[in-house]
């Protein structure tokens, strides 16, 4: 059963990979979204701090939700509009059908509302004989072809102008030009009578303001203004979590939504609507009405769930979709149920069920970029890990994922049996067997194992020669430097010792991040416990923790505090964890030298790759600064998203692995090939494999560069 589920997903991925024009359109849209977002944030008086205020507002309003809900509902009623609290989709739909029947309505004009899509309102209304028309252009286009949104903010980004023209030729029965301006004229003419004659106008609400009982509707096209003003009946569907307390809160949201979505300071139109206004003079009193449907549909339960609670902060900006590497290739039809993209995984799980979320959750490669871009600080990667974990109760992890999670066991085995293991790994028959049995793609160049691990080597060398240290550090190695590149690990040790730092390198385990990535949180917690147990004892004795693998630092600083919450020793280890280069800088600063700093790297040109897990840790800036100090010319080469390797993901055979990984990587490979550089530098051992294969440019760990020169 599990395999059938994956087969379906793989089929969808394959189709998406083959659809290059759609992929390219999506890629451009995402990039544009991210770029203009960055620019508009820079224009804000407080810059990124603004989002912290927004997050605090969201938290505060969710804390007071029961109270605010009551206040909002009372105020709405005082203004003469109706409030209906809908437990779930069917309840909301029944209410709408009842109103439609009572008013003898025929035409429903809708403006874009994700909440109405969440409960799939159109179908039952159409079955009841109503004509339901989406009036947001993007939504209208996909409605005409019976699709779901490809992207949260750009629903029809995958459909080209000539295709749109064809869609409207069919809809209007008239000639429609292929150019965008021509199409717009047709659309304007086509929709106008619908706006004029709709019996019911249906909208969502971006915000509900408790202090006054008004809703806020944001659009660029103005369609929400049409459907909320002309029809006699207005129906708004909104989630409970949209309610804020004050006008000031609402202003923050109005600004945050478009900035985070597309880098616009306000949408062209923002309507604040309280009660129901008459339309001109005369007409029967009471013929104009407004109904606010406040939808729960799992939200109250979500609020009680410590893991998913924060997902209610989501402002539906779609920024996570604009940075997610795999969603960016496959689009929202594959990466999503109704709610697409990274936020779609926890939201689907909570409002549409775990099973539906589990259908596409494996597309998340746990790069963590969605967490970095999220304006309201939702820990999406952790929530997604939880979804994968819960889903694995009913659908055990496939073999290949179990193999990847057990990478440490294989590394140990490979190292213990080297060089035999390496001979096997270089043997195509063995690799074919490996692919067939455990699902490791035979094309992936795997690093050789070393019999003498770093820990063994260090032990053999004897205790640290530093007698009167300025600092003490325990080296947290993770797998690669221990089992595959002990020289690199030794070099790190020596660089620290050279700067008068005493280094400890005890027997240790890997960071266990693959357990988070594939969703086995019990084992992830076990790995975290083991490592914290070891490292905390060193920190107690005044040691710092130093890493050379970005994912290891990320695990200690970002993942463990989530896996083992509210624990003092976890917090202390996180605080004392450093990446090698920032640590070397720290050591240098403690033993200042009088001599002019040498610039041995002068004339060298490097292209630096930032591994995703390094982004929240300073994006490699410390390493880059260090190399530049030595005279190197370092250029960050990036396209703003992941390289696609994502730990072990890119080692897996097939669409949900190697193929998708390659497709994600292509644009970055091209950038490296075009760059004027001699060598690629990256600190991640897995990104290194991917970039080497993808570019065939020489690649090194930055440590190797400074060792060569010292």
């Amino acid at each position: 059963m599990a395999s059938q589920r994956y087969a379906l997903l793989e089929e969808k991925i394959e189709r998406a990979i083959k659809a290059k024009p759609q992929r390219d359109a999506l890629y451009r849209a995402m990039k544009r979204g991210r770029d203009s977002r960055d620019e508009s944030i820079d224009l804000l008086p407080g810059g990124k701090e603004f989002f912290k205020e927004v997050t605090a507002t969201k938290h505060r309003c969710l804390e007071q939700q029961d109270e605010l809900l009551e206040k909002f509902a009372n105020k709405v009623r005082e203004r003469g509009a109706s409030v209906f609290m809908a437990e779930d989709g069917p309840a909301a739909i029944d209410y709408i059908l009842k109103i439609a029947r009572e008013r003898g309505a025929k035409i429903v004009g809708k403006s874009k509302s994700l909440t109405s899509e969440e409960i799939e309102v159109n179908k039952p209304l159409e079955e009841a004989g109503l004509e339901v028309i989406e009036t947001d252009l993007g939504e209208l286009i996909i409605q005409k072809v019976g699709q779901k949104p490809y992207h949260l903010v750009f629903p029809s980004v995958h459909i080209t102008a000539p295709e749109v023209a064809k869609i409207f030729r069919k809809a209007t029965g008239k000639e429609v030009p292929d150019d965008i301006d021509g199409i717009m004229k047709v659309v304007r003419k086509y929709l106008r009578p619908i706006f004029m004659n709709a019996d019911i106008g249906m909208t969502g609400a971006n915000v509900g303001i408790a202090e006054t009982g008004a809703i806020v509707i944001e659009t660029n096209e103005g369609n929400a203004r049409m459907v909320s003003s002309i029809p006699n009946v207005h129906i708004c569907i909104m989630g409970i979590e949209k309610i804020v307390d004050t006008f000031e809160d609402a202003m923050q949201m109005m600004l945050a939504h478009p900035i985070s979505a597309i880098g616009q300071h306000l949408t062209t139109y923002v309507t604040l609507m309280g009660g129901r206004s008459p339309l001109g003079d005369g007409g029967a009193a009471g013929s104009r009405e407004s109904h606010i449907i406040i939808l729960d549909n799992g939200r109250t339960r979500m609020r009680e769930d410590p893991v998913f609670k924060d997902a209610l902060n989501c402002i539906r900006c779609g920024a996570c979709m604009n940075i997610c590497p795999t969603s960016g290739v496959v689009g929202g039809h594959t990466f999503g149920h109704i709610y697409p993209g990274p936020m779609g995984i926890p939201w689907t799980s909570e409002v549409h069920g775990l099973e539906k979320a589990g259908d596409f959750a494996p597309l998340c490669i746990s790069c963590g970029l969605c967490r970095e871009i999220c304006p309201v600080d939702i820990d999406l990667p952790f929530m997604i890990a939880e979804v994968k974990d819960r889903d694995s109760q009913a659908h055990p992890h496939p073999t290949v994922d179990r193999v990847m999670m057990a990478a440490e066991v294989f590394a140990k085995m490979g190292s213990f049996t080297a060089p035999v293991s390496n001979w096997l790994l270089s043997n195509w028959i063995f690799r074919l067997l490996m692919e067939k049995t455990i699902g490791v793609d035979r094309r992936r160049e795997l690093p050789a194992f070393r019999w003498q691990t770093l820990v063994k080597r260090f032990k053999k060398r004897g205790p640290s020669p530093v007698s009167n240290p300025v600092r003490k550090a325990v080296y947290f190695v993770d797998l690669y430097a221990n089992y595959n590149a002990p020289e690199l690990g030794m070099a790190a040790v020596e660089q620290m010792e050279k700067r008068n730092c005493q280094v400890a390198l005890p027997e240790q385990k890997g960071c266990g991040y693959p357990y988070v990535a594939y969703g086995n949180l019990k084992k992830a917690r076990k790995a975290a416990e083991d490592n914290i147990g070891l490292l905390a004892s060193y920190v107690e004795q005044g040691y710092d923790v130093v890493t050379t693998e970005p994912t290891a630092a990320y695990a200690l600083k970002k993942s463990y505090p989530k896996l083992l919450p509210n624990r003092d020793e976890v917090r202390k280890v996180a605080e004392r964890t450093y990446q090698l280069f920032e640590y070397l800088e720290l050591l240098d600063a403690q033993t200042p030298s009088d001599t002019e700093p040498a610039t041995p790297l002068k004339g060298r040109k490097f292209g630096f790759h930032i591994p995703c897990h390094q982004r929240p840790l300073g994006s490699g800036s410390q390493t880059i600064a260090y190399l530049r100090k030595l005279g190197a010319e370092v250029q960050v080469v990036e396209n703003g998203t992941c390289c696609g390797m994502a730990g072990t993901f890119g080692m897996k055979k097939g669409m949900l692995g190697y193929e998708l990984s390659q497709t994600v990587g292509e644009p970055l490979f091209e950038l490296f090939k075009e760059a004027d550089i001699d060598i690629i530098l990256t600190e991640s051992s897995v990104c290194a494999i991917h970039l080497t294969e993808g570019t065939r440019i020489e690649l090194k760990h930055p440590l190797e560069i400074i060792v060569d020169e010292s």
Partner: protein
Amino acid sequence: MTEDLIKQFTTKYEFLRGFTHVAADAAEAADIAASIIKEVEGQRVALGDLPDKMMQIFEERCWEDEVEVIKPPYNRSDLPDLIDKAHVGISWTKFAIAETGSLVEVNTDDSLRLVSLLPRVHVGILMAENLVKTLPEAAPRLRDFFSSKPSNAVVTFISGPSRTGDIEMRLTLGVHGPEVSHAIVIRGKNGSA
């Protein structure tokens, strides 16, 4: 100070693909409006709830050019078609936000919302003294308005013409609402100047 706000507002509104004009008084504003109407060959103009004196000035200016004027109060039975048939809609702006380039209209009758929505060309009239700098400054003004209207109240922020990027991400204007949006800022006081 006001000059800085005018500059900031007009710069932003134009960045958002709107057109802006600064007039010394209502009469000059009416002349500007007349030239806009002429340029688009408008024969019928819908007016919003302009202050009485200004309403009269604009109305008379339109008659001079033999442009038909429709004005509030609008009859329910004529709506929405009456306003839909107007070529230009001239609406009154309660205040505006310089930083975001937003005209803010406040209404208690939806017919007035249609004036800045249905015609292909929109002209928003703004008194310079009603410009505020930042969005947060709008909050107390909105609070005052909504609390003075215990039943129905609608506020619309308008930042340029109707726009969409839904086809191939290309910015296109006027898909539903106005394709052309002008803002006329009047320096004089109280709309009576």
